[in-house]
């Protein structure tokens, strides 16, 4: 079977499914107006709401003050620790309640500046904030268990900052809305990295970062489109003022890379789920071997030793690293049946050789 057979087979898809694909369209203007009308109704409803649900607003002096009151608000703590300057911190809480009691908090809005860039962050503690349809998202990113949806909107801040990049996510029941006005989509990732830490999957934008790679510090990721919709990501660290590429990865979905210490030596390895142009999915691990960067892939002989897979089996298993479980998975078809295995054996399955960056 080849791609032409597959294309021909897709030609037999049910008529009603094809027809449905023609009927389905993006949201039309009147739907948006309906949505706006609904918002106005909600706003009007807020005025008619019983008094005990009304809120009052208090200006706070510092992020530390917020962090002290709400120790669970991780992002506020991180922002406070980062040295971000705040220009406004507004807390709205239930009218008549104790503003130092997070149970009464309704919303927190922080505006400030970090790294020369203005930002705003809104936290909604009722988790009732209207969420956009992810279908209209500009990009998605995964930070640990937190799924982040990024939107791009036109901004009225002039040509230097033509877009508003807005990231939405929910953490511990609090919904967050982080936004920056910018010409560069990478800026929103800078803030996400700051408040959520190391990205698990930084989208396919250049400029995503990993905070600790191969013991060499922050790593900058650059994206290169090598064929339509297929990308190559280059991972750069700065050593003695020079940018050095320490890893590269192929794929379609975004840089799926994670920094994990697989051999317990205190220096994290870089694990990359790689998809080549011919559709082969393999895991490549990069390590720092006393200053020499090496790349490794799983030995075929290891599959034979560990799982008894046939000696010199043909084709490639579908390999992936699962960052949530911290295990590797491989699927291979033996005698017509797909066999899936999971393993977590540190670096033992891997065979390493020196990494050479071919730019």
């Amino acid at each position, binding site marked *: 079977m080849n791609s032409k057979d597959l294309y021909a*087979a897709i030609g037999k898809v049910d008529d009603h499914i094809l027809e449905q694909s023609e009927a389905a369209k993006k949201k039309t203007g009147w739907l948006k107006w309906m949505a706006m009308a609904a918002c106005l109704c909600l706003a009007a409803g807020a005025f008619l709401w019983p008094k005990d649900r009304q809120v009052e607003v208090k200006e706070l002096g510092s992020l530390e003050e917020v962090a002290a009151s709400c120790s669970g608000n991780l992002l506020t703590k991180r922002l406070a620790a980062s040295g971000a300057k705040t220009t406004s911190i507004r807390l709205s809480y239930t009218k008549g309640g104790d503003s130092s009691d997070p149970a009464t908090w309704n919303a927190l809005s922080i505006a400030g500046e970090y790294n020369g860039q203005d930002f705003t962050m809104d936290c909604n503690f009722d988790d009732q904030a209207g969420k956009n349809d992810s279908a209209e998202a500009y990009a998605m990113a995964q930070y640990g268990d937190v799924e982040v949806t990024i939107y791009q909107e036109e901004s009225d801040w002039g040509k230097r900052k033509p877009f508003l990049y807005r990231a939405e996510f929910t953490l511990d029941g609090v919904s967050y809305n982080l936004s920056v006005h910018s010409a560069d989509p990478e800026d929103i990732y800078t803030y996400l990295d700051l408040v959520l830490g190391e990205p698990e999957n930084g989208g396919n934008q250049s400029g995503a970062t990993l905070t600790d790679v191969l013991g060499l510090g922050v790593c900058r990721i650059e994206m290169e489109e090598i064929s339509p*919709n297929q990308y190559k990501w280059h991972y750069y660290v700065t050593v003695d003022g020079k940018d050095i590429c320490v890893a590269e990865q192929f794929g379609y979905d975004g840089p799926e890379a994670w920094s994990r210490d697989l051999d317990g030596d205190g220096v994290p390895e870089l694990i990359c789920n790689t998809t080549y142009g011919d559709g082969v999915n393999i895991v490549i691990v990069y390590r720092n071997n006393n200053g020499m960067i090496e790349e490794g892939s799983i030995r075929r002989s290891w599959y034979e030793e560990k799982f008894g897979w046939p000696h010199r089996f043909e084709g490639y298993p579908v390999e992936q690293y699962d960052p949530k479980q911290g295990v590797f998975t491989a699927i291979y078809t033996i005698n017509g049946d797909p066999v899936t295995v999971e393993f977590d054996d540190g670096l033992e399955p891997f065979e390493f050789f020196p990494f050479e960056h071919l730019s």
Partner: protein
Amino acid sequence: MEDSTIIELYWQKNADAISETANKYGAYCFTIAENILHSVEDSEECVNDTWLHTWNAIPPQKPNVFRMFLAKITRNLSFNRFNARNAEKRGGSEITFVLDELGECVSDGSDVEAAYEAMELEQCICHFVRTLQERDRNVFVRRYFFTEPIPVIAKRYGLTVNNTTVILSRTRKKLKLKLMKEGYL
């Protein structure tokens, strides 16, 4: 003219059936052919061949969804022409990218390929497409049935190009797993 009336004309072997079909669906079928062939001349010929095949097929056939019936004929004829024409010359048309993308889901020279009939593969694909969520399914068929460029699909459904690419990539991965499970790979 209503589709049912046009079909009735075919059953009566009335030649107006072809001109009515061409008036109503000429541009639609041309777009499908053009996406595959990337050639005005070849696409026009395929569309004309579509009318001939439709004339020969009705009767005895009585299509439920006439537009999709025409779409499938146009797609098949265009793809056959593409195969005949492009033994050497590839590149330029959307179908080239579509075939490359689908190439991720298959592996040439599989030992088991002879064991499966094309019809079984078609049923497998139909089942797979039915199981997809509506949005992903729509994006998938616009790309791999209608061979539409990704920016066109994105615009059609109000998605970003980036998001559309991600949806397609994930759906291809699912398809590959399905084909592996079913023993095609």
